[in-house]
């Protein structure tokens, strides 16, 4: 596939996706965000493919010259799950025994800067988006996690599904008691 970005700034994705398809993807990501905001984890799992890979890498703080595994520092993932792992996380929420989510945690996900590209695989799209996950709980336990995602969305007979998601957080030290939410 041709390089879809211009070599010189500003880089603009040369999208080959139809306006209609792109709009469907935007709507899908908005729906997905709302399903998660509403804690409908079973519904969310139905939006994933059987072979999904969901990863959150740790952004290591290294000098530019030490990037990309040139040293003893190993890459590290906060989450590196397939469907069984994600189901397990959802199952925990469903037990009714997770005290930290009662009173209920309030979530709000804002998804923006959505860019869609075709890939070499038919019916698969590379979708990049920026997000802000806002979480409020108890009296004033408020946390914001901004970041960006790189997804592979697959068009299946049932509709769009997430086949791969990489979540890039900007925090090296997670300033949160727990990231027990889906991005």
């Amino acid at each position, binding site marked *: 596939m041709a390089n879809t970005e211009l070599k010189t700034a500003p880089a603009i994705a040369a999208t080959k996706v139809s306006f209609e398809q792109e709009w469907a993807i935007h709507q899908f990501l908005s729906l997905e965000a709302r399903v998660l905001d509403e804690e409908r984890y079973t519904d969310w799992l139905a939006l994933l493919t059987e072979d999904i890979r969901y990863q959150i890498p740790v952004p290591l703080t290294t000098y530019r010259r030490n990037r990309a595994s040139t040293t003893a520092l190993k890459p590290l993932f906060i989450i*590196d799950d397939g469907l069984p792992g994600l189901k397990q996380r959802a199952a925990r929420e469903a037990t009714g025994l997770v005290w930290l989510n009662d009173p209920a945690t309030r979530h709000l996900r804002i998804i923006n800067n959505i860019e869609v590209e075709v890939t070499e695989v038919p019916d698969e799209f590379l979708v990049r988006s920026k997000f802000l996950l806002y979480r409020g709980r108890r009296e004033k336990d408020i946390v914001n996690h901004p970041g960006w995602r790189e997804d592979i969305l697959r068009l299946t007979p049932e509709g769009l599904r997430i086949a791969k998601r990489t979540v890039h957080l900007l925090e*090296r030290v997670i300033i949160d008691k*727990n990231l027990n939410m889906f991005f």
Partner: protein
Amino acid sequence: MKKINYQELVDSEQALQKRSIFWDPVIYEEELKQIFNRCWLFLGHESQLPQTGDFIRTYMGEDDVIVVRGKDKVIRAFLNACTHRGNKVCQAEGGNTRSFTCSYHGWSYNTEGELAGVPLEKEIYDNLDRERFGLVPVARVESYKGLLFGCFSEDAPSLVEYLGDIAWYIDVVTDSAKGGLEVIGTPYRTEIPGNWKLPVENAIGDGYHVAWAHAGAMSVVGALGHGRSDNVLGISANNTNVDQSAAIEVVMNTHTILTTLDGQSGYALYDHPEPVLAHLEENRPRVIEKLGELRGKQLYGSETHIGVFPNLQIIQGLNFIRIIHPKGPGKFEVWTYGMCEREMPEETKEVIHNHVRQTFGPAGLLEGDDGDFVEAITHSAAGYATRQMKGFLGMGMGRKVPWDGPGEASPGLVNEACQRGFYDQWRRSMEATNAHEIIGQTAPGVLREIRHG
């Protein structure tokens, strides 16, 4: 300043701890001086620094520290502060370098900490004595079987003396490891709004909270989640009953340990422990030969929480090393490193690393539960009346169980012996007038003489 009455803050006879110790900034300042400036503190593992010029950054108390392997292969530690004006000379968490250069005026130090470069030196200084201005070294750096520790106190006892009897238990982790212990070279890091002592004593001794605080996670992970067993670590599903003969909590002079004694339940919380269990049995004869029957059969493979005072936990089974760095009285950072045996098959290592991530990483299924109550305990102490209350850790007091290893053993995982030991040690450290007094006196009896293997 009014003298702080530590006997009142930690009452060993009644097992009470005044809650102001989690909140009072005056007490916190004393902790930085009495504990973090005197005790041996964990820096990292030698496997993180294989090459000349490899470095990592960590904290000793709130002091930012660089640990680096010099050109002579020696590992040293320095305060991360330029000797000119105090700016940090390193902003990366680790890597490989020939020098550390201050971003303010460009003073540059080599990996042995010597001042190696001063911009415009000839023009602006007359005979600058470079030797005076090397990075400030951490007074003592020693390794115990690959585990690196530093100490700010020149006259402190040696690391081996400081560790004392707990070394007998640490050996189960270090000496059993085929090819040596290996850590993932990068820790998970999370900042939690709570007092540093709470996560420490939770990890080293609080078996009581496991089935209740983590009830949601416990019902979906490991032995219970997969229906392999109707109990985990001796505690039944739904927290309805506990087998107190299934584990012991052992308090030594300075440090503590909790262990399940069955040689395999360390992996009870794994979804798929089979490769790890197979490795344990394959390696066990070697461990028995090296460390004797007691450690080889009963400790190797058990869920074992080694608490090295003040802030290090080595946790076999869940298989991670954890450090709690204080960040003010009401905040701390948790650093979690997965650990494995260097010569384990790669896929077995992977099972362990996955498990660490899944249970106690920053998005771990169990991790978040603890942060919540640690915060609440700390912040409720903001209330003057609440702060006058005392926490009660009286569980299992006076209960003893015969044990052939070092230390005084108390029966059961649901016991608060290790937590009491921690606060006793905290009080002793806060009252100490020198680094030697931090180490507790030999426990009653002849336990120190008892050595196996």
